[in-house]
């Protein structure tokens, strides 16, 4: 079994590398309308962060990004997309939380069937991606330690 996994891994490492483009799946926006994830691509580089109401480090990370956002915007053009993977049970809580945590500068979307999460191959949250203006995924990071938001900013700056 392990051998099989390892073989599969080794097999795929043989492929050549290039930037991956963001998959096209359906999610809901803040108003509850169904939109396509490709609609998020509008020429502006973005941080896409997967979070849920029961994931404390996710909320810490998004709060840290929110605290720094205006400083960052002085240097680069960017946006932050907060993708809630909350299911029907906590979806309304997630909607309330984005408002009540002051995340009004974020683009908040809701992936209640976790199609976007699966398509982006997210296993554990928080999982954060940097996507350039054309929709290419250029960086990803899983987990949060206070201060690691600086790395996101550094990567976004490299896109300039």
């Amino acid at each position: 079994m392990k051998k099989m996994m390892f073989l599969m891994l080794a097999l795929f490492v043989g492929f050549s590398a290039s930037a991956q483009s963001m998959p096209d799946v359906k999610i809901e926006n803040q108003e509850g309308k169904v939109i396509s994830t490709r609609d998020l691509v509008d020429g502006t580089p973005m941080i896409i962060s997967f979070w849920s109401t029961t994931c404390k480090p996710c909320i810490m990370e998004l709060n840290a990004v929110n605290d720094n956002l205006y400083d960052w915007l002085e240097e680069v053009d960017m946006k932050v997309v907060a993708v809630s993977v909350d299911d029907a049970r906590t979806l309304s809580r997630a909607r309330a939380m984005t408002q009540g945590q002051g995340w009004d500068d974020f683009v908040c979307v809701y992936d209640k069937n976790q199609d976007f999460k699966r398509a982006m191959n997210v296993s554990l949250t928080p999982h954060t991606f940097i996507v350039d203006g054309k929709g290419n995924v250029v960086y990803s990071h899983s987990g949060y330690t206070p201060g690691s938001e600086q790395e996101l900013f550094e990567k976004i700056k490299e896109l300039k």
Partner: protein
Amino acid sequence: MKKFLLTIGLVAATMFVANEASAQIKAGEGQVSIALESNNTYYTKDQKLIDAGIYIPGSQDSRTKGDFGSNDYLKVDYNLGRFSAGVQLDGYLPGLFGYDIYKYQQRDSKMTAFLSKYVQWEDKNWGVRLGDIYDQFGNGLIFRAYEERALALNNSLAGGRAYYNFNNFVNVKVVAGMPRLYDVRSSNWVYGADLALSISEMTGWQNGILSLEGSYVGRHQNDAVEEFGMIGVTTENLNMVSGRLNLEVAGFSFRGEYAAKLNEDVYDPVMPAKKGNVVHLDLGYNYKRFSVSATFRRQEYMTTPIEMRPLSIGGGNSMNYVPLLTRQHTYMLANLNPYRGTSIFTGGEIGGQVDVYYSLRNKKARGKYWNFHANFSMFNTLNHENFGMEFKSRNAWIDFNFDIERQWNKQLKTTFFYSFQRWDEELNHFDTDHADYCRSHIFVGDVTYKFNKKHSLRVEGQYLVSGDYEGDWVAALVEYNFAPKFSFYVSDMWNWEPMDENYSYASEKHELLHYYQVGATFTHKFLRAQLSYGRNREGYVCSGGQCRYQPAYTGVNLAFTLTF
């Protein structure tokens, strides 16, 4: 131990691979992405747990299959424009102790793997998927096929799904397939259709959203009448319907769903089969940085198994989703006795919960703010009959909690959390006519201090006060972070003043049993790995509104994820 070392070897090898390979992989015109998640535990013998009578070797809740457990998931996807295809290999080698999959494997004592696969075409207005389907209708009250790795649950349908969207006015979806039950495929069929009409789009109403939705779901089990006719099953085809209304206007939102199970269905093979129904209402309001969200639900006999057969145990044997709606706490002591629902014994429940959020912010200093959050939840049992006895509705659970978060400056952040919980201990075990209420007050202080851009320290202190049940508990956690790669933590919790079963303080001098954890997390490029060692308390582990019973154990855990 050998396997555990092998796993560590595998991590080292994959780290090397991750360093060598670049993030994305291109195959022809399309792209391949790979994600591996592996959770491994090496269980060590803990004489203290045995002496305390908490872990009893040879008992129903003891380990019977060696010293090692591993839940692994390898997912490989290929994407080319609107086309995608993929496989997922789940390995339980054997499954981790305390998961329902482990109990399943125990029956025939083997390691198992499960392969799921799909091909999909996603067009602008329509889509088709063949293979393993993950989907849900509305809140999932009559149908939800999903994966929850924290509980090792996966009830995806092997079959097909198609949808068509006409101008955003009408969305039609159909699904059919055979559900997965842990590591086997059920021989039952589940099928359904969902229709959503957007009234606001049709009428060109710009100021809000109004939509009407309806679903049908069926399940076919061969010989159901023959096997369960004695307890009231009258058909091999179970039918369920749901109707929904969603309205959003001027900061208000309303989402309502009514669903019904139209035929008698087995929810416990020793009980009479029952029809079911559920009402679910969500109300929301937000104005600037103030928001309120309230949920009400009344449900009766709605949990619907994939298989009615008696051996099909656990939360994984469910084709719909009727989760617990109380707040899922993240602090250790607030989670000591989580609400686990009463419907397993009493058939149903009625109740709800309210969340209030407010953020107080200074426009000039963005790094300074207050966040306030309060939550209240309450659930009661329903008037019901059990073994010919009548039971009156009574309170099963109350939780009032709030947290106040203060970012003082760029360095310092503090959180204060309080929760009052009251539950009926009788209902956790049986359906009885008398209550046994236990209460606890939980206090938590949580401080994060950032020394500079890379170094930070987080400390948690927790205290649980209780005059009944287990008495007082204490917990503490210290975490040191070295951003962005390393994090180290150590935590401990213990029953400060244990009580006996009559809720009086144990008279004999007792030895404190510490539930300690020490661990480290490492993140680099596509790898995230966590290594920890500790003693774990027996209790309920909840995720996504469902709980599983975890017996006590001590062991070394290595978990890692790898994404290409």
